[in-house]
């Protein structure tokens, strides 16, 4: 049963996307990933709106003080094991907005970021690649025996 959950999780990463103040370019590319031309659903990547359903949090954009709170809240709602993908130059370092007063220069000051996808805006292929890389990270993490999360969902599954 445990293995089954593992397999499912690896083959079908569900993502939740949060726009933390990007120029919308990256957000659109994330959405464009879902459309017929780039169609990431064939990899099992599904965009969900509910953080409780998701394995991977895709963050685009620079963080500011107001949405950092929302972002942290969103991250904490996600079940373990989870991974964070930072998409775009703004999410990595602030990019061109490094001079702006309301910019926190990157998501990694707020959340532990697993995968960095550079580019402004990154191509949809790069985003899909980043999500798949994050899944490998999630996979590793769920196999770690002494990690904090202790594979909670899997245990519950077994008890049933």
């Amino acid at each position, binding site marked *: 049963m445990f293995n089954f959950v593992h397999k499912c999780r690896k083959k079908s990463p569900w993502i939740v996307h949060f726009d933390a103040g990007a120029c919308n370019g990256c957000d659109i590319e994330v959405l464009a990933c879902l459309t017929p031309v780039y169609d990431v659903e064939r990899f099992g990547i599904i965009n969900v709106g509910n953080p409780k359903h998701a394995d991977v949090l895709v963050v685009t954009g620079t963080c500011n003080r107001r949405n950092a709170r929302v972002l942290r809240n969103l991250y904490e709602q996600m079940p373990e094991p989870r991974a964070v993908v930072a998409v775009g130059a703004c999410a990595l370092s602030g990019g*061109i907005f490094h001079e702006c007063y309301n910019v926190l220069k990157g998501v990694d000051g707020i959340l532990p970021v697993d995968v960095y996808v550079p580019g402004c805006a990154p191509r949809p292929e790069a985003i899909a690649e980043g999500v798949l890389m994050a899944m490998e990270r999630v996979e590793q993490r769920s196999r770690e025996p002494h990690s904090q999360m202790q594979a909670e969902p899997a245990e519950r599954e077994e008890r049933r």
Partner: protein
Amino acid sequence: MRMLRNVMRNLFSRPSTRLEPQRRAPIPGVRGTVAFETADCVYCGACGLRCPAKAIEVDRPARTISFDLFKCVGCACCVEACKKGCVQMREAYAHPSYQKPDILFQGAPVLKREEK
């Protein structure tokens, strides 16, 4: 009737999805990643000055260029600024990575003039 036409068309047309990974050759002229050719570089620093995101730092005495890929916005200003043609735009896009290195690209401190 219209539906039948649609069904037939969908059956025989090519899928619009692009195959992954990397079946499609990059289009010429696409702005992908910045690359430096330090052979002719005089370390004038024009690329760093023109960069709107301050991703390039040129250290003239030490003859190094540090380029932060994670700050780069791919505007190709540096390519236009370089008189020597040392800064080039590669067509391949930048791949995601697990770490955040401080300096992804470091131009080698080439030989001093006396040594040449």
